[in-house]
């Protein structure tokens, strides 16, 4: 018994099976987590290797080159770039998208193990760090306080960070921007010298005086007592009375040589939120946790936590990655609901029957909800890819059911009982329906095999649509016939009201049939003119395509802008602060309604900060980090890109600013961050490449559309270097190590012990008083003691010189490189790149220097070539499926004529909407291949059927066209209207999928016209040729089977 026969005969079983699927689907849906993109591994890893005391060039020659040549042999390597700085080599490995990072890292570790011995002495073990999206903070809060500001760190740490860290899924909560408490022992070098004391001695004296020692236990009588010495200082004041030495029979207390101050860190990062100083609370998630889930839990826990904090502490959200996710998902959900509504209207409109409409619509929820089971079972999330897949599929899932229902209706009208009509009606079209689904699978299955960045995005889309299509096929072959057998009646009476409403529509359809027939007859009578018109339109659209720009991934407005402003090297924090506050002010003045919060961070995090997020960020006294959060996109008139461009202008207008880099969208793993164009200058000579870089920067500045131009090579940094004379050191019984630690302990400080209070620990630091650390003489006067207790001044064994540290050396693909990168604004990627290339070709450059253009354009080219391969594969598969269905090589060829002409619609719609050719519109074009040929299959199949029934070519074409007009229009309209909300809905993140919708709507509209009007022309042309040929050969009666050309 076939599937449809058993389902018609066992309606209860059928309905219960589908009910089970729906219930399981809803269950899965409730369990699904929400994310922006399907989960994927990042493709980057960093290898760090420190080589103390080596200059950038030494590091490059001895460490970087060796590591690079070893690491460049790992498989799936895309790019290897490195930075060699003083003391450290950083090698960045970029792998091909979709490579298993864990395997790659193991591979790297093995290779590094082999060359470890070849690394110079004193070089640390290379450390491998995987770059993952988990490093990105989920959310950043800023806390401001009035009365509580002096103890802000402790309050936030105890009252906010600790409770938040207990929230499940939260990885770490770190606080920056508020100085921590520190106990500083400011020693006076003169006093110390007088008593023959060193910082190290004072440090160890404090350490010895500030310890608790458990000293065993003793039995007294029948009881056991434990013995303890509680030596830890109860108050920081007591430090003053620590005995540091005996000098000339006199006891020297700490207060005699130093001033103890219980204070906060001298230098800390400062954060300003909307002009007010505050602390930044950065929340990172545990690796693998879902951001939206974590954020929901945080939001739930936060009100309770806030209740326990002092009233004057205000929390403000500076950044939140999940808002964008939620908004994007919600606006896609709306799109899906709208699409559903459109499809319902179309079906009702064409069928004109309530019962039939309900039967068809049942397939939508069943097939869509069932796809959630797949998502849940495969551990995926609800993301914009899986939801776009659903949105695309809505219009297509009803097609099979419509075909089945139509045939069953015909049977019922001819007098069959619904039961028999359902079984035999389905039987007749089952093969055609399966073939139609197979053509769609031929399109979407190859998506699951895509590689590269596009593969990460579209694998899931491919699987989703394949699964939805298979389920909708199963529905059409079981649920639909079953429901037909139960619900359909011959001549069911519609209510009078409905008939009144529907009669004009019916009349309209009848008129359309007549008009179409007339047009078709005209077209068939004027084949040459028709062909010329169509080809002219095709050529016209090709010309049009030249004026359509291209980009890689459409940028979407997520309301975040990040960036930095750099003052000239050497500027101190005070100057940075002034510029930061001025910038904040100007921005808020200019965009009072657009900017929600603006946060600036200045200064460096202190060495002992445990803030891993802050450590990853670039920082410096002259470096201002900026983070702008915009208001909801519905509430503002200007988009993110416009505002970003204006922020760049503001930054450029300050004469004090040396460099700035402001990026729309934030850097979230390369998506939506906007296109960049890099000019990569490969060459060994610093001077030559630097000059060239500046020249190229000038060129870029003159090309329209280039903005935010940054040269990657850093400036020379001023610094004091202490050059010890090794010979003199040796004469004094000193080593470089001891001497340098002496200098470090005095200037930077020696952390000698910890002060405990209320369960918290604070560092006790000994160092020179501030007044003795502000000139070169202060350094020169530092006394260094050798093991015999003999002291020498730094000036006796070393020279203190002011120098400029050479910049770090950047390399890529094992050659020195300088990058000049720019963002684009108001110009498309291909135009900008072409223009730059033309200018660069004119540039005079030494022969040993190479200039390449890189950046987003490379990703774009890779992806587009992937897409072309994919389209070729799909065209071949679709051709095979059709050839098998028609058992002919000619008919699939005729049907495929509509594919190139669909481009007319694609380019026209892109041109009219001003959308570029990008990854999403390219994917839309690939999908079109399958959707477009579906109409052709329906039409050609019916024309063939007519011819097999013995009707002449022209009559068969006209009859076929007329009778298939409504089904073709109906399936096309469901698809087009299903996509329409995608193409025109404006919502957060909509920029991402809009191109896909526009391409499909435009392409399908035109290609349907081609199918209905031009394909009959081609069909008659080819068929007539074969008939004439046949007659010439004088063979017997002609049937469709032997009209094939092959």
């Amino acid at each position, binding site marked *: 018994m076939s599937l449809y026969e058993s389902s018609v005969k066992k309606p209860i079983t059928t309905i219960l099976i589908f009910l089970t699927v729906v219930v399981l689907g809803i269950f899965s849906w409730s369990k699904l987590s929400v994310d922006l993109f399907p989960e994927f591994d990042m493709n980057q890893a960093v290898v760090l290797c420190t080589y103390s005391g080596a200059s950038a060039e030494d590091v490059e020659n001895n460490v970087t080159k060796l590591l690079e040549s070893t690491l460049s042999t790992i498989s799936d390597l895309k790019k290897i770039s490195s930075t060699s700085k003083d003391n450290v080599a950083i090698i960045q490995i970029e792998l091909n998208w979709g490579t298993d990072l864990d395997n790659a890292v193991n591979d790297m570790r093995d290779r590094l193990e082999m060359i470890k011995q070849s690394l110079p002495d004193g070089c640390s073990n290379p450390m491998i760090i995987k770059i993952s999206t988990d490093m990105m903070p989920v959310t950043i809060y800023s806390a401001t306080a009035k009365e509580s500001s002096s103890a802000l760190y402790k309050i936030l740490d105890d009252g906010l960070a600790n409770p938040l860290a207990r929230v499940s899924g939260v990885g770490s909560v770190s606080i920056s921007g508020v100085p921590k408490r520190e106990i500083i022992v400011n020693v006076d070098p003169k006093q110390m010298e007088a008593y023959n004391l060193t910082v190290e001695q004072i440090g160890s004296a404090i350490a010895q005086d500030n310890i608790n020692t458990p000293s065993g236990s003793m039995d007294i009588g029948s009881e056991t007592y434990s013995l303890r010495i509680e030596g830890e200082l109860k108050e920081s004041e007591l430090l003053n009375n620590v005995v540091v030495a005996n000098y000339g029979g006199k006891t020297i207390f700490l207060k005699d040589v130093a001033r103890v101050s219980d204070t906060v860190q001298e230098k800390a990062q400062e954060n300003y939120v909307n002009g007010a100083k505050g602390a930044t609370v950065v929340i990172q998630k545990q690796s693998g946790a879902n951001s939206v889930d974590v954020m929901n839990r945080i939001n739930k826990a936060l009100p309770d936590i806030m209740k326990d904090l002092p009233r004057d502490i205000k929390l403000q959200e500076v950044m939140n990655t999940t808002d964008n996710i939620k908004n994007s998902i919600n606006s896609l959900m709306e799109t899906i609901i709208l699409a559903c509504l459109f499809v319902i209207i179309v079906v009702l409109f064409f069928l004109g029957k309530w019962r039939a409409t309900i039967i068809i619509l049942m397939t939508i929820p069943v097939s869509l909800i069932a796809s959630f089971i797949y998502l849940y079972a495969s551990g995926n999330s609800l993301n914009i890819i899986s939801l776009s897949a659903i949105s695309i599929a809505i219009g297509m899932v009803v097609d099979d059911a419509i075909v089945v229902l139509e045939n069953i209706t015909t049977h019922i009208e001819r*007098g069959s*009982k619904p039961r028999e009509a359902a079984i035999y009606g389905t039987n007749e079209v089952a093969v055609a329906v399966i073939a139609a689904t197979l053509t769609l699978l031929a399109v979407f299955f190859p998506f699951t095999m895509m590689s590269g960045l596009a593969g990460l995005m579209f694998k899931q889309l491919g699987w989703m649509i394949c699964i939805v299509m298979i389920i909708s096929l199963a529905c059409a072959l079981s649920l639909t016939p079953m429901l037909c057998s139960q619900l359909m009646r011959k001549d069911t009476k519609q209510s009078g009201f409905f008939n009144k409403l529907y009669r004009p529509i019916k009349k309209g359809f009848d008129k359309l049939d007549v008009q179409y027939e007339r047009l078709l007859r005209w077209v068939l009578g004027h084949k040459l003119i028709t062909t010329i018109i169509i080809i002219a339109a095709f050529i016209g659209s090709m010309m049009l395509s030249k004026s359509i720009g291209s980009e890689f991934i459409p940028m979407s407005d997520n309301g975040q802008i990040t960036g930095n402003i750099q003052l000239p090297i050497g500027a101190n924090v005070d100057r940075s602060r002034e510029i930061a506050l001025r910038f904040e002010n100007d921005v808020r003045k200019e965009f009072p309604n657009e900017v929600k919060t603006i946060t600036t961070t200045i200064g460096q995090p202190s060495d002992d900060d445990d803030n891993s997020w802050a450590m990853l960020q670039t920082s410096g006294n002259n470096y201002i980090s900026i983070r702008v959060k915009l208001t909801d996109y519905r509430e503002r008139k200007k988009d993110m890109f416009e505002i970003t461009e204006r922020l760049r202008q503001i930054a450029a207008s300050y004469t004090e600013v040396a460099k700035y880099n402001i990026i729309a969208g934030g850097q979230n793993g390369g998506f939506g961050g906007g296109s960049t164009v890099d000019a990569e200058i490969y060459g060994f000579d610093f001077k030559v490449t630097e000059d060239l870089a500046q020249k190229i920067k000038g060129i870029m500045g003159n090309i329209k559309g280039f903005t935010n131009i940054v040269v990657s090579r850093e400036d020379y940094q001023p610094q004091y270097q202490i050059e010890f004379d090794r010979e003199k050191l040796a004469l004094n019984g000193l080593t470089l190590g001891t001497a340098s630690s002496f200098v470090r302990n005095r200037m930077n400080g020696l952390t000698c012990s910890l002060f405990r209070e209320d369960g918290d620990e604070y560092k006790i630091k000994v160092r020179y008083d501030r007044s003795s650390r502000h000139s070169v003489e202060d350094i020169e006067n530092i006394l260094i003691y050798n093991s015999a207790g003999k002291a020498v001044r730094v000036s006796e064994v070393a020279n203190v010189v002011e120098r400029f540290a050479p910049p770090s050396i950047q390399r890529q693909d094992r050659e020195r490189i300088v990058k000049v990168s720019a963002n684009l604004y108001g110009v498309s990627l291909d135009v900008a790149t072409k223009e730059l290339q033309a200018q660069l070709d004119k540039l005079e450059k030494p022969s040993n220097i190479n200039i390449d253009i890189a950046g987003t354009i490379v990703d774009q080219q890779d992806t587009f070539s992937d897409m072309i391969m994919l389209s070729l594969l799909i065209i071949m598969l679709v051709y095979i499926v059709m050839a098998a269905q028609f058992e002919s090589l000619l008919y699939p060829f005729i049907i495929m004529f509509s594919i190139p002409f669909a481009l007319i619609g694609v380019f026209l719609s892109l041109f009219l909407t001003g959308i570029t050719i990008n990854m999403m519109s390219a994917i839309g074009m690939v999908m079109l291949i399958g959707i477009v040929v579906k109409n052709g299959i329906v039409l050609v199949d019916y024309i063939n*059927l007519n011819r097999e029934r013995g009707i002449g070519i022209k009559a068969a074409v006209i009859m076929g066209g007329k009778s298939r007009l409504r089904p073709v229009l109906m399936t096309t309209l469901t698809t087009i209207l299903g996509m329409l909300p995608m193409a025109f809905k404006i919502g957060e993140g909509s920029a991402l999928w809009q191109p896909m919708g526009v391409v499909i709507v435009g392409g399908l509209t035109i290609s349907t016209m081609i199918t209905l009007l031009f394909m009959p022309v081609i069909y008659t042309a080819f068929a007539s040729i074969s008939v004439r040929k046949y007659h010439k050969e004088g063979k017997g009666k002609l049937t469709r089977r032997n009209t094939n050309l092959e």
Partner: protein
Amino acid sequence: MKAALITYNQAHIEEVERVLNQLAIRGYTRWTDVQGRGSINGEPHLGSHAWPSKNMATFCVIEDAIAPLLKKMLRGVDNSAPQQGLRVFFWQIADV
């Protein structure tokens, strides 16, 4: 005794069975998936691409008296849906 061969569109199976039951015709032989074409206007039932519908055939041997009744009732079935197609053929049976 007469032999009756009823050939009909497979969608008519229930009606044909009902008629046989009503006339208490117990014995019959049925072929499913048979093909055929009507002599005058009948649409072909070939199970092919062009003519996808199929026929069934029921053969039964009945008393002479029942034959007209069977004919009449089957004509009623045929008239209810003339496009589907149903024919019954009778001939004499010499022996069983």
